[in-house]
């Protein structure tokens, strides 16, 4: 299950969604971050029930907006898709990048996972290239502490040149701190910009000089120069629309681009190599920053996780454990849920009797009683008593399995057998969910879809081929 080219292709992401500002003074804040870093927890915590979810024009990649108030300003928070980078390799990344670049957010909050900061810094560094009004939010500090990972938030902030706040998104007071930091976010930070290898830097400054003489709205000329070097086709169309002038038809600019690209090619940097060099610089910078600010008392992937994984995915115990868990889930969903189903059923039976008695006392005609009580009310009672308990058991169970990271391991275990039918291991989950979930909860497939199939949590353990998770 994932995003297909057709459902999310260029048509799906060619326009930014409208942001619902209530007044002119509302500030739009984009919430960016890797998948599975608790971005939604931050979003939900900050906005409460004050949110609405819509789709990007062309659907599938959904975007949620919510409101929250600080002492100084009111904010419209826009939850953009979780991504590992902004290089637009997948539909989500394209959506994320387009919103950050062309959605004109007043500030960007990048949520990071304290337990693997290095990986997250890649996105932070890329975001700093786009905007200087960035607040970095290192989430899961409590979890990191438990894993004996210490992060120097102050040092990180000094190095990045933007405010950094360490939080545990489950705590109310931590979220209040985020809002305070947003209120206090300086208009002009001096963020760290990644240094690329010298030939690329020269090419950038060449292009930048030309670009600075153009009308760029809020785009950063250095960033734009970088993107022009990358020759990113999806971006060029977007730029044209945003800037309102023909960037490809600008003779001086294109000449300059050709010259610098030839110069780069002369030094062995052509096509893919330019991008490789850029990615390498980003990854190295992230490594350096993490090295300075993160202190681990043991290796990130510790002994306990290792042993557990060995059991969950080994040749002899992997499949039996999987079957056992599946059976247990089935058992709880089907057999155990009969008990609350029975309770609900007798409750509705009792209510129906009361209603009937009431109708008789009022002397209502038979057809009215038939329509309202034996017709509508009884059907409602049946549906609720049959469907609610299995759903109330299955979905939390599945979420539990997801939260403890077992689902990606299923995908890993089943990749080989599934590949025999030209599928991949991740589809095992779809099958599982569709089979069990939909069977018990057909009308709720919408919840299912929005709830976790698109939440992109499987990425860390997933096969790299299929984009950023589900």
């Amino acid at each position, binding site marked *: 299950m994932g995003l297909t080219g057709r459902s999310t292709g260029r048509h799906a992401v060619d326009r930014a969604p409208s942001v619902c500002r209530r007044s002119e003074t509302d500030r739009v804040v984009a919430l960016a971050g890797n998948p599975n870093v608790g971005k939604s927890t931050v979003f939900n915590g900050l906005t409460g029930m004050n949110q609405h979810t819509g789709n990007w024009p062309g659907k599938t990649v959904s975007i949620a907006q919510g409101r929250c108030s600080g002492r100084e300003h009111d904010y419209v928070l826009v939850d953009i898709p979780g991504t*590992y*980078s902004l*290089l637009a*390799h997948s539909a989500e990344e394209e959506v994320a990048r387009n919103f950050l670049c062309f959605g004109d957010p007043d500030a960007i909050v990048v949520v990071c996972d304290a337990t*693997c900061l*290095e*990986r997250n810094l*890649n996105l932070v560094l890329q975001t700093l290239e786009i905007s200087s009004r960035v607040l970095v939010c290192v989430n899961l500090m409590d979890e990191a502490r438990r894993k004996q990972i210490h992060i120097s938030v102050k040092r990180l902030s000094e190095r990045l040149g933007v405010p950094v706040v360490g939080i545990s998104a489950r705590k109310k007071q931590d979220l209040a701190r985020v809002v305070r930091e947003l209120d206090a976010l300086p208009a002009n930070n001096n963020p760290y910009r990644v240094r690329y290898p010298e030939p690329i830097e020269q090419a950038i400054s060449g292009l930048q000089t030309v670009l600075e003489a153009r009308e760029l709205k809020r785009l950063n000329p250095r960033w734009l120069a970088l993107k022009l070097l990358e020759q990113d086709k999806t971006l060029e169309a977007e730029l044209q629309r945003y800037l309102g002038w023909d960037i490809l038809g600008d003779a001086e600019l294109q000449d300059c681009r050709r010259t610098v690209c030839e110069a780069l090619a002369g030094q062995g940097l052509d096509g*893919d190599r330019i*991008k*490789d060099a850029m*990615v*390498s610089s980003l*990854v*190295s910078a992230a*490594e350096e920053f993490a090295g300075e600010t993160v202190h681990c008392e043991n*290796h*990130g*992937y510790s002994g306990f996780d*290792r042993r557990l*994984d*060995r059991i969950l*995915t*080994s*040749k002899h115990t*992997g*499949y039996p454990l999987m079957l056992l868990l599946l059976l247990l889930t089935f058992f709880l969903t089907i057999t155990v849920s009969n008990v609350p189903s029975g309770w609900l059923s007798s409750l509705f039976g009792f209510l129906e009797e009361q209603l009937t008695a009431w109708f008789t006392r009022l002397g209502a005609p038979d057809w009215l009683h038939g329509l309202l009580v034996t017709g509508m009310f009884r059907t409602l009672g049946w549906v609720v008593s049959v469907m609610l308990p299995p759903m109330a058991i299955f979905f939390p169970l599945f979420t539990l399995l997801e939260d403890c990271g077992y689902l990606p391991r299923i*995908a*890993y*275990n*089943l*990749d*080989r*057998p599934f*590949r025999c039918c030209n599928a991949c*291991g991740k589809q095992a989950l779809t099958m599982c969910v569709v089979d069990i979930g939909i069977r018990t909860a057909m009308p709720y497939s919408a919840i299912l879809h929005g709830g976790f199939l698109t939440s992109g949590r499987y990425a*860390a*353990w*997933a*096969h*790299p*081929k299929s984009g950023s998770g589900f």
Partner: protein
Amino acid sequence: MNQKQTLDSIRPGERAVIQQLNVSGQMRRRFLDIGLIENTTVECLGRSPGGDPSAYLIRGAVIAIRAQDCRGILIRRPAEPAPWA
């Protein structure tokens, strides 16, 4: 070892250092995204029950990669063994 080795040749428990990516397109980008650049140390953690995708520890994250895709990743062996092995 001068002969070219690829990532699929390391066994569970062994480590290797990435030398070069010999793949292109989408796969290359995914590899770069997960931090598989030159001089990155990678440890093989295990194989899936089916024997094919193997799990690798890359920059603190556990990633499963199929043997077929690993063949595009050139490695060299580090001199010292893993300190925690």
